[in-house]
């Protein structure tokens, strides 16, 4: 049997076939015997186009153990035997349960809060951001990170804990930040409303027309600091867009068990902040509204609070889904799946005469960029532990310090009486 990689001429018709046909089927089964057929390009095409991908990747004497399941960028189902699982993670001795549960499935080993189902608001805002604008986000932040123009590759590398990650692999998905794009996350949720007042203050202080967008969820609206922040922003008339994504759940606890109203906007107006309640799954409506609202904020008219009604169609925190815990009804989930914002936008575009080819091309390019980022992240190096130990303090100073002399202590008269306090 010939054991050699495919040539480019051999690869392209197979890749084209997969790209053209894989989407049509409910299930794609890959039987990979490891003799060179499934190269990087075909791997990417399968992972991008197969709606449900089942893979059997064999390690055998023919491929001498070089062919492992870990080369695939994704899979919905895998079928391998125990030696193949052990080979994949280079572990011959641990319990097989450890190999499968802790090692094989843990390439991305940090909590990830997907924004699937909630993409419309960040997508709409992405068209309205200026470079000097600041975003301070909760940890369902991927949409806002990308909306602010921070690089996709660095975000994915961060998920993998790699040195090339947006945070050098030290923060993970739930504390992403990217200073060059003025994108921050990583307070314990409600805090971002309050931190945003400082971002907005810096914009007024500098005298630019930037604004700060603060994003939290409905659960965080139940913490006290939120109301301090709304008050501070109103009193100082700061350019903040407070955005609350009401997706009905704080973890697994539904809003009707946490508050007396399923909407939040009514709690905010008494602080002297303008408010609006908007359908969070209608990207075009959101764009129109945000356009007006951001213009008013840039115009110095003070803070604005927007509640968007939306829903996360994946788990609270993954990568895995969590519907086995039965905390929401399948009917509720289906109702929102039917209102998926990306699909809704697709329908609108087609109905307005945009050619399907154009839409499909955008979708393919996006998928390809994601898979490329995953591929790159897997190859990137991990950060160096010793380096991380030196990151706690910057030990740096403003330039003005270097112009100052250092003071050396003199003998101090310690016999002076202590201050006796009075009210003032």
């Amino acid at each position, binding site marked *: 049997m010939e054991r050699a990689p495919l040539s480019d001429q051999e690869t392209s018709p197979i890749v084209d076939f997969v790209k053209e046909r894989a989407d049509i089927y409910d299930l794609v089964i890959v039987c990979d015997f490891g003799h060179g057929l499934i190269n990087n390009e075909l791997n990417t095409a399968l992972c991008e186009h197969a709606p449900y991908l089942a893979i059997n990747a064999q390690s055998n004497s023919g491929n001498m153990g070089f062919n492992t399941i870990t080369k695939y960028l994704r899979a919905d189902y895998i079928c391998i035997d125990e030696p193949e699982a052990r080979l994949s993670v280079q572990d011959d001795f641990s319990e097989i349960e450890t190999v499968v549960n802790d090692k094989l499935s843990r390439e991305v080993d940090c909590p990830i809060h997907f924004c699937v189902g909630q993409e419309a608001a960040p997508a709409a805002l992405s068209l309205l951001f200026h470079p000097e604008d600041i975003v301070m986000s909760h940890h369902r932040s991927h949409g806002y990170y990308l909306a602010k123009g921070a690089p996709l590759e660095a975000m994915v590398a961060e998920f993998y804990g790699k040195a090339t990650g947006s945070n050098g692999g030290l923060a993970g998905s739930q504390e992403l930040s990217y200073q060059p794009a003025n994108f921050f996350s990583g307070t314990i949720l409600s805090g971002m409303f309050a931190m945003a007042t400082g971002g907005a203050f810096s914009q007024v202080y500098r005298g630019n027309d930037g604004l700060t967008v603060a994003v939290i969820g409905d659960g965080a609206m139940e913490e006290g600091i939120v109301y301090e922040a709304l008050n501070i922003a109103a009193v100082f008339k700061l350019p903040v867009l407070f955005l609350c994504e009401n997706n009905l759940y704080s973890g697994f606890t539904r809003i009707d068990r946490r508050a007396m109203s399923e909407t939040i906007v009514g709690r905010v107006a008494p602080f002297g902040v303008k408010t609006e309640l908007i359908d969070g799954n209608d990207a075009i409506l959101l764009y129109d509204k945000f356009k007006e609202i951001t213009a008013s904020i840039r115009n110095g008219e003070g803070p604005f609070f927007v509640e968007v009604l939306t829903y996360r169609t994946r788990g609270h925190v993954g990568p895995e889904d969590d519907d086995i815990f039965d905390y929401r009804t399948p009917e509720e989930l289906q109702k929102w799946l039917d209102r998926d914002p990306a699909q809704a936008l697709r329908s609108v575009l087609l109905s307005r005469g945009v050619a399907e080819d154009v839409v499909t091309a955008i979708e393919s390019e996006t998928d390809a960029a994601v898979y490329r980022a995953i591929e790159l992240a897997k190859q990137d190096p991990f950060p160096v532990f010793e380096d991380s130990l030196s990151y706690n303090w910057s030990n740096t100073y403003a330039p003005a310090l270097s112009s100052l002399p250092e003071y050396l202590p003199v003998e101090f008269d310690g*016999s002076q009486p202590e201050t006796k306090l009075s009210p003032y």
Partner: protein
Amino acid sequence: MVKSEANTAVNLQSGTDISTSRLSYGQALNAALRQVMELDDSVFVYGLGVDGPPYLFGTTAGLLEQFGQKRVFDTPVSEQGLTAMGAGAATSGLRPVLVHQRLDFMVYTMDQLVNWMSLWHFKSATQSKMPITIRAIVGKNWGQGPQHAKSLHTWFAHIPGLQVVVPGSPAEAKGLLISAVLSNDPTVFIEPRALYAMEEEVPDHPYYIPLGKAGLRRPGKDLSLVTFGSMVPTAIQAASQLKKKGVDIEIVDLRTLMPLDLEAVLTSVKKTRRLVVAEPGWRMFGAAAEIVATVCEELGSKLVAAPRRVCWPHSHVPMSTPLETAYYPTAEDVVEGCLKVMGAGSNT
């Protein structure tokens, strides 16, 4: 004297011809704020009462007139929100100085300090800075009682990423505050209210004192007394009393608990082989314990006597005047601690 590597070091004892003024601790803080605001226009000062009489015990007087409302302003009573606002401004390139009239109010802000600000630089892999200074005044005398007189310096020093500064005299308060405000790391700047009226000659021009470098308050050969903050004058008084008894102690003023100048402590103890630590705070799990533990680890076999601590009792601060007087360690308590260590040494 601690030797400085900087060519421009100011040493009043060397007779360098520089102009000075006799300032109180509070006035020195005021001078520091004014000069650091002149040096760097990204510095702003905010907090309850900063822009009006009585100007936080005089420390913010004159700032509003000189720098305007943009850079000096009063605020709502929202400790958490204001700390978070400072964090947001700091990561966006400004240098906030937030003032709390009592350190106890900072307990509201532990989420901001511990969960975000301390780790902001770390978790950005050094991309983001957090140059904020939080001034916190520790009450003492006038029946402050159990709720308004705590000094939680060890809480802050325990958290990687925070700096903790506790100046022990006016000239040091000025130089350390300028350093703290110009530092790119978050700094808790603790001011013992009991020192506010104490005076000394303070250089008129702006200067800095390095954070993480202890000061030698008094050279001596018999025993190292390590201290900081409000116990610096107490230690100096104790040194005078001990001198009369023929005991020559060295006083090491830590100035900053984090960064901690262990080298200065170890250098001193290597010479004297005896250690007392006087800490203006609770005894258990405190800074004194950390110093004693480190000295024992590094120099244990070289010590001629077991180290001792002189701290607040592990009990809340009582309000009633006689009890309050009994509560705080005095120069006599420090003398007693030192003599015990000297005595123990002579028996070995």
